[in-house]
């Protein structure tokens, strides 16, 4: 009876989900602090007392507080913390005791995170939107993912309320402790190079007050000491080298666990929960391996693992993911080498729930492993609809949300010409030149400042018409004259690439262009019938220069591999041995499209910056794009040839004026509708002009 009452009371409390839980306190511990925490006077617990405690996990939230896509400026119900919050409330009704923990990759990943980190950086007294929501939801602990390091150490120190003692930051004594999460964050395998001490507290022990059942069946209150310890992929040293090199180093997750878990036990932890931001990998263990959770499960004294990083679901009986089909991994029960383990997908799509049954005997709590339950609850219902949002979440961060929307909509600059790719295949550079200008400018600056050995080499840039009508008349880049906003940048640069610089020879450039020229069918000038100009070679591989400095011709009457002629740099033929730096993207530089000579070996700079962000920065700086400067430089032309029959291609309807504005006087319209049903018109190009 009393138990029921307690449950009801818990349910009432949970329905006001976002009221913080005050049922626990935590003793933080560091390796240098070996004294036992002053024990909280524990209520007397009788042997035979049992308690049910559910560990609740979110992971890889990536600042998706709301079910909202900032690029589309539209709701997307398939993700968002405001929906997983509803699952948290439900779990608090289902279990008498819950401990809400986050796995990390929390503060980066949406326009909201960029806005708070870089556009309008939050001040010391402000709390990140995602942490505001988590504070209100009553999180009691969290781990640190790799993405936490994406904005650098000073920012991470500030927003987590820490005072890092690392090179490049003032002495901790002269740093202010800024607002951060109201719950402890733990990370055991990243150390300050300056102090040789862990950057965060490696673990903490939470004194969790639980509602338990005594041996007489009566409801009692008791304290369970739950130790949490966190791990992040050691690979952060490569991924965020620009922020971390020389400042921090990692130790292996297994070694760190073997050092600290016995310490946690010695300090009285009844239950040890590993919060590992990493997946499962059973290849030979190394202290630098990215996904070390498989080996963490084998460290003695681990009662449960909350894992993440892979953006996957575990347990999942139907999972075909290799990491969940390893020996020792039970994808149905949710165990890894016998340790209950959950991975709650990403972006707040799921909530991980590990139900532990605790029994108090011989003066200590232990887990009855035969009764453990593991599940990853989905925000999507069986009928494909989604659970309702918790309305208190959006109320909490309404201002930050609106500010981000305003930021995304804010013009970054303007253009005095329409930038589109309708006629990019036949020479209109308006959708491509601004990308090439931005890329060349960025790489040029980088080389001058950081790669003096290459400073004498010319810097060129290539890009392609990523949207070139494959999906029909609307599948083109098309930015109207006027203001250019952040969301227009995705139209001008479709793919989420990062910018790379390759050092190539004149012969490499010729081969590169020969491959790109596969975009065209071989035209027979003597044929009297109509010939299609564009081949099945995709537009996204039609790399081109758009610069006054480089010029070439494409002879479509020649076979593939011998079409590029008159290749010149600043008016002189380019020799095979001449050296250039070319700005491109990670896909092409790493071998995407199988371009000869592009295989990753020529990359001299693999920037972590996105081509799209480089473009935005360029437009901001240029302020007003003008056709004469940013949209009229054609590096290439078709080699002139008179054809007996028409050479035709398809593009958007009613667009001839666009070709004329670009100076393509050799283009004419044959049919206003080409009959394909794809909103395309048929155009002809006179190759003799």
């Amino acid at each position, binding site marked *: 009876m009393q138990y029921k009452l307690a449950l009801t009371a818990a349910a009432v409390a949970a329905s006001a989900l976002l009221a913080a839980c005050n049922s626990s306190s935590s003793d933080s511990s560091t*390796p240098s602090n070996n004294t036992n925490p002053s024990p909280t006077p524990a209520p007397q617990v009788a042997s035979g007392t049992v308690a049910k405690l559910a560990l609740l996990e979110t992971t890889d939230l*990536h600042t998706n507080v709301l079910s909202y896509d900032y690029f589309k400026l539209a709701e997307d119900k398939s993700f968002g913390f405001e929906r997983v919050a509803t699952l948290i409330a439900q779990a608090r009704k289902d279990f008498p005791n819950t401990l809400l923990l986050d796995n990390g990759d929390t503060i*980066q*990943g949406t326009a909201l995170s960029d806005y708070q980190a870089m556009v309008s950086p939050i001040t010391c007294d402000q709390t990140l939107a995602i942490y505001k929501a988590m504070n209100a939801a009553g999180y009691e602990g969290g781990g640190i993912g*790799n*993405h936490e390091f*994406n904005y650098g150490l000073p920012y991470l120190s500030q927003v987590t309320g820490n005072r890092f003692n690392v090179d490049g930051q003032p002495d901790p004594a002269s740093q202010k402790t800024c607002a951060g999460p109201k719950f402890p964050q733990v990370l055991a395998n990243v*150390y300050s*190079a300056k*102090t*040789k001490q862990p950057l965060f507290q490696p673990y903490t022990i939470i004194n969790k007050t639980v509602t338990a059942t005594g041996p007489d069946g009566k409801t009692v209150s008791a304290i369970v000491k739950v130790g949490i310890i966190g791990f992040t992929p*050691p*690979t*952060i*040293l*490569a*991924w965020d*080298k620009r922020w*971390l*090199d*020389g400042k*921090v*180093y*990692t*130790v*292996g997750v297994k*070694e760190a666990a073997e*050092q600290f878990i016995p310490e946690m036990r010695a300090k009285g932890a009844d239950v040890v929960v590993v919060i590992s931001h990493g997946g499962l990998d059973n*290849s*030979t*263990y*190394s*202290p*630098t391996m*990215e996904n070390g959770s498989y080996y963490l499960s084998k460290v003695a004294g681990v009662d449960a693992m909350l894992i993440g990083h892979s*953006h996957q679901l575990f347990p999942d009986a139907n999972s075909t*993911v*290799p990491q969940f089909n390893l020996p020792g991994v039970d994808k149905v029960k949710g165990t890894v080498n016998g340790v209950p383990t959950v991975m709650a997908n990403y972006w707040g799509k799921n909530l991980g729930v590990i139900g532990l049954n605790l029994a108090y005997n011989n003066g200590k709590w232990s887990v009855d492993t035969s009764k453990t339950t593991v599940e990853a609850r989905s925000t999507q219902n069986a009928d494909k609809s989604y659970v309702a949002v918790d309305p208190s979440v959006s109320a909490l961060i309404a201002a930050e949300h609106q500010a981000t929307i305003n930021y995304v909509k804010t013009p970054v600059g303007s253009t005095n010409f329409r930038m589109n790719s309708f006629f990019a295949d036949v020479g209109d550079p308006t959708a491509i030149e601004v990308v090439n200008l931005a890329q060349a400018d960025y790489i040029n600056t980088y080389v001058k400042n950081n*790669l003096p*050995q290459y400073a004498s080499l010319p810097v060129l840039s290539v890009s392609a018409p990523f949207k070139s009508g*494959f999906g029909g008349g609307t599948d083109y880049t098309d930015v109207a004259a006027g203001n250019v906003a952040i969301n227009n940048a995705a139209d001008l640069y479709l*793919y*989420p*690439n*990062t910018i790379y610089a390759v050092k190539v020879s004149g012969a490499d450039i010729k081969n590169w262009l020969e491959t790109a020229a596969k975009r065209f069918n071989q035209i027979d000038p003597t044929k009297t019938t109509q010939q299609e100009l564009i081949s099945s070679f*995709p537009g*996204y591989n039609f790399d081109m220069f758009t610069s006054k400095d480089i010029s070439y011709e494409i002879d479509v009457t020649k076979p593939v591999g011998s079409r590029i002629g008159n290749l010149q740099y600043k008016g002189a033929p380019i020799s095979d041995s001449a050296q250039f730096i070319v700005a491109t993207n*990670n*896909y092409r530089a*790493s*071998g*995407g499209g*199988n371009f*000869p*000579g592009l*295989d*990753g*070996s020529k990359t001299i700079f693999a920037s*972590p910056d*996105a081509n799209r962000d480089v473009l935005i920065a360029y437009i901001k700086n240029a302020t007003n794009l003008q056709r004469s400067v940013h949209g009229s430089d054609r590096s290439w032309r078709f080699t002139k040839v008179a054809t007996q029959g028409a050479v035709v291609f398809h593009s958007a309807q009613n667009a001839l004026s666009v070709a004329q504005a670009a100076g393509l006087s050799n283009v004419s319209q044959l049919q206003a509708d080409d009959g394909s049903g794809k909103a395309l018109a048929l155009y002809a190009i006179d190759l003799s002009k």
Partner: protein
Amino acid sequence: MAILHAAKRHPRLLISLSVVALATAGGLFWQAQHRNAPDPALRANTLTELRVMADSGRDDDALAELQRLADKGTPDAQRTLGQVLLARGDSEHALTGVRWLQQAGQAGDADAYAALGKAWLLGSPGLAINYPQAHTALQAAAKTGHTGAAYYLGIQLKNGYGIPADAKAAAHWFEVAARNDEPAALFMLANAYRYGDGVANDDAKALALYRKSADLEYPPAIQAMAMAYQHGEMGLKRDPANYKQELAEAAHALKHPAQQP
């Protein structure tokens, strides 16, 4: 001395370092005589941790300890020291690093030859490209089935860097590396099947290899999958939802790409 100094500030390494020190001081005889011979995996892991400390952590004590272990003549320590010195970037460190790697390689350490081959193939501010030397080193390591060496040997053969191009041999070495789930090699082998480069064109094989590489978070492979869903390539049906999903994954993976071997 260096051990104690480093250990004072980093207690856990004390234990592992003493094991390494014992192992190297006593050599094989010590190992053979003792039931509790040091675990080779433990030794490898300790060297890896020293490397991280000396490299990203710029820890002089860790570097000194590596130097001391290398001086004792064990190839794994010599290789680790060589890698740390090479990573410092300047030519003085690079040249010393190359010497240590050569010494370790000559003693049969395939990792050392693989690291040397890669360094000579790609070049760096401190070390000029040397294709013939790269080829010799990569071949020596690749012959033993070394994943990274097989991949870079494939790269050298594919585009004929300092040697005649041989697409068939390149595909073979990509395949050797791909067997060990090397993401970049899976991607290159996928390209070979897709474009019939050294092997017969096989879109289904290409697709499966791109998929596997993408699952290992290799951004170019995820992007290849995105484009394939976008345009309906390699036998896939056009699928806007999957295209969008792969695009989001590519954006995400770029923040933590699978590392080149």
